[in-house]
């Protein structure tokens, strides 16, 4: 039978309990009773989420117990360092469907609740019994110890749970990732990572307990990659690749598969994980790989293959004389490479009338950026940067500064633009030789030889298009044109003499 304890009470029938500074009755231990192991797991999940379990773990045991009637229970024994800890443990136990007791050795009394804020005492302890007696409201239950379940076993054997949306990592999450790769994929993955300029380190690790299906002699090693600042697009590509598993570090030597989470907050039970081991929690495969550590990682870029040219270079004698000149003609060839921006258009003289019509039709902002040069090869229409060229004639793109080639064509051989520019010799007339240094636009048309136009020959399209406008003077008129707001004039219509006759008085409100 439980008795409620009042504030200031110092004498108790219950052995091994004493009031703490708040007056709450507390033993050295707390016992959380659960009907099944699920309750213990739920309690671990709840408590680890709120507070660290590391302080409690050295004195914590999970006991399998049995009553004299044969019913089983799981008793979680924790050290009751303070009533604050036991308060939190009791609250979590209540949520997980358990009950909380406190005591020191054999007898444990129900921990305080709302009805008795300072705890309970026991009226009658009863005779000597089995290992442990829990005194509750409904009576005292004696438990015989049936065995012990190590907490590490419970934590290690729990299956990871999938967290929807956790596959997408933010920049902080992608700062450091572990990737386990099957041996056959290792080289390809490393090449892929290094090509994407991801800083990666690798180590070959072998699990402590190899799979039972591993054939004798089979190495069973996995390549563990430590990657820094992995881009999101790379993660997208790697996600779901068989043989490649991505891990997020939960602590320095624990990693959990990306997209999954351990039911218990692993950071709060870090003391269960020795630091000389590396723990990889696989979610989809539902297994735990324990690797002997610490792992020494090496730079992945050193693994790239280096090709060595077998024949040594032979010095060749260079003769400047007596050899025929090597000249490779520049030609235009169709290309499938992405088209460059159209910057100019060569309009044949036969289409000059259509160009004139376009000038009439198009709005001024479209025409504004265009310049035109009239040549014997056609009308060369050039548009400044940021302006779309008029859709007429042969469209030209800029292969190099000042070098225009037809759209969809490319210059062969492909040489750097400065080499190409140096190879172009402009045939200057005598009169323009003096201004040889001025800029030119060189055009390689579809047909015929290339030609060039001096930049000074270009004029704004509007100016070239407009004919001379003769403006006659406007004759001034004597009378100003009336305009403005219409006036509002009161016009009194003709009404009879008796318009107001019989006008009624307005009714009073």
């Amino acid at each position, binding site marked *: 039978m439980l008795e409620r304890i009042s504030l200031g009470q110092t004498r108790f029938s219950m052995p091994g309990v004493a009031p703490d500074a708040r007056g709450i009755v507390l033993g050295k231990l707390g016992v959380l009773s659960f009907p099944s192991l699920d309750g213990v797991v739920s309690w671990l999940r709840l408590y680890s989420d709120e507070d660290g379990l590391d302080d409690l773990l050295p004195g914590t045991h999970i006991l399998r117990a049995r009553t004299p009637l044969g019913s089983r229970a799981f008793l979680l024994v924790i050290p009751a360092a303070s009533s604050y800890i036991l308060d939190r443990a009791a609250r979590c136990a209540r949520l997980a469907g358990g009950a909380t007791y406190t005591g020191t050795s054999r007898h444990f009394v129900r921990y305080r609740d709302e009805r008795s804020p300072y705890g309970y005492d026991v009226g009658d302890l009863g005779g000597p019994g089995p290992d442990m007696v829990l005194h509750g409201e409904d009576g005292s239950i004696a438990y015989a110890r049936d065995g012990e379940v190590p907490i590490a076993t419970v934590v290690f054997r729990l299956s990871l749970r999938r967290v929807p949306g956790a596959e997408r990592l933010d920049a902080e999450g992608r700062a450091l990732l572990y990737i386990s790769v099957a041996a056959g994929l290792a080289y390809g993955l490393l090449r892929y990572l290094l090509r994407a300029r991801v800083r990666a380190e690798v180590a070959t690790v072998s699990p402590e307990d190899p799979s039972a299906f591993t054939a004798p002699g089979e190495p069973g090693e996995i390549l563990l990659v430590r990657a820094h600042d992995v881009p999101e697009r790379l993660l997208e590509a790697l996600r779901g690749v068989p043989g490649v598993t991505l891990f997020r570090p939960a602590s320095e030597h624990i990693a959990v598969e990306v997209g999954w989470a351990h039911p218990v907050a692993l950071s709060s039970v870090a003391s269960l994980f020795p630091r000389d081991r590396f723990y990889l929690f696989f979610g989809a495969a539902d297994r735990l790989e324990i690797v002997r550590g610490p792992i020494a990682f090496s730079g992945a870029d050193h693994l790239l293959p280096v090709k060595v040219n077998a024949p040594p270079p032979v010095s060749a004698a260079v003769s400047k004389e007596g050899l025929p000149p090597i000249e490779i003609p520049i030609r235009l060839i169709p290309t499938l490479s992405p088209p460059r921006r159209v910057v100019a258009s060569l309009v044949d003289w036969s289409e000059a009338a259509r160009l004139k019509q376009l000038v009439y039709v198009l709005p001024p902002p479209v025409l504004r950026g265009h310049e035109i040069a009239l040549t014997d090869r056609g009308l060369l229409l050039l548009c400044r940067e940021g302006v779309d060229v008029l859709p007429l004639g042969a469209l030209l793109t800029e292969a190099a500064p000042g070098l225009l080639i037809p759209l969809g064509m490319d210059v062969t051989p492909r040489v750097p633009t400065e080499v190409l520019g140096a190879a172009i010799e402009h045939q200057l007339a005598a009169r323009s030789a003096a201004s040889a240094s001025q800029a030119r636009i060189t055009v390689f048309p579809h047909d015929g030889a290339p030609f060039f136009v001096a930049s000074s020959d270009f004029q704004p399209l509007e100016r070239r298009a407009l004919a001379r406008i003769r403006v006659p003077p406007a004759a001034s008129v004597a009378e100003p044109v009336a305009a403005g707001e219409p006036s509002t004039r009161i016009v009194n219509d003709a009404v009879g003499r008796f318009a*107001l006759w019989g006008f009624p008085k307005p009714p009073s409100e």
Partner: protein
Amino acid sequence: MTDLGQFLRTFVRPLVEGGDIHVGEPLELDTVLRWETELPGDGEAAMAIDDARAAAAAALVVKPPALTFEAEELRLCAALYDALVLAHPASEGFTKRRARRRLADTAARLATAGAPETRRELLSRHTLLARLYALHRIDVHVSWWTGRADYRGQAPPKRLLLWPSVRRVREERTEIPVTDVLAGEARASLLLLAAATPLTDALALGADNRPRFRWQGKRAILEDPDLARAVAYAWLPDLHADDALTVAGRAAAAFLEDWGKLPGAEARAVLAFFVHLMTIVALAEVGLPDLDAPSPVLAPALRDPDGGGALLCALPNAAARIEPALQAPPGVSADPRLLRRFRAHRLQVEKSVSAEKLRELALRLRTALRVLP
């Protein structure tokens, strides 16, 4: 008049769009009440009226509310109509004085409307009566060799104008503003209509012929940024003109007269509006090469220290004496050039208006704003 469609066509539509508004037989209150149930009456006229009002509202605010001709608008138009009937020549005469009094009572009853509270109400009444102060009547005085005749708002008969040289016919046309037309018994209706549409009253402050401007009932305008902006632009039409601050000065003078009659919060809002106007004046001059030079806009107004323009210029200076937060709108200090120009204006006012006058102004302002010393 008993036909609603005719009333809309011949009176309301020209009142809104501009043109000749025709005044004839008086409108009884019962007729107006009956018309309220017959609205919109002539659909074409009602649509044209709504379109004209929407166009007028669009000139003031970016997103004008939907305005439809409803019972309240009908009553205000009927009030104006009956007030104008009082000035009709057929309504004159000793024998009609009782009927005239009844007609004046009816017009006043119809013109009585509560102060508008919302933007829609303000715009609805303004777009209806925007031309109230532009209304005028053409009176014709015809004299001939044997006699003379006056025609008020009516065209003289053609027979009187025949053979002008032989009969020595002289025709004199005089434009009579609405304030003169609606004098005597109709005056009360005009004042009620002016009070019913405070936005019109404020925007038409520059009109030559209009009743005295009062600040009462203008709170809703100051609370609406778009409408307050429209009023500010109407009061500062051309800052290059010599009389740039004349219209706003009238409002400041009206503020001086209405001191003590406005609630403290309303008086504070009006004062803030004036300070804002002066900031606009300073803003218009931030492009000047010398930002510390005396302002050519303020100078003509400050020549008359007792005028409304000088009062307007002095209000920010007086406000600074009672509460620093009132001396400039928020954000002025963010623009160094504007702040410098605004300070140059205040310095110019300090030099032109005596310190005693500014102190007295601040004292009166403190009383008006209910600020405890």
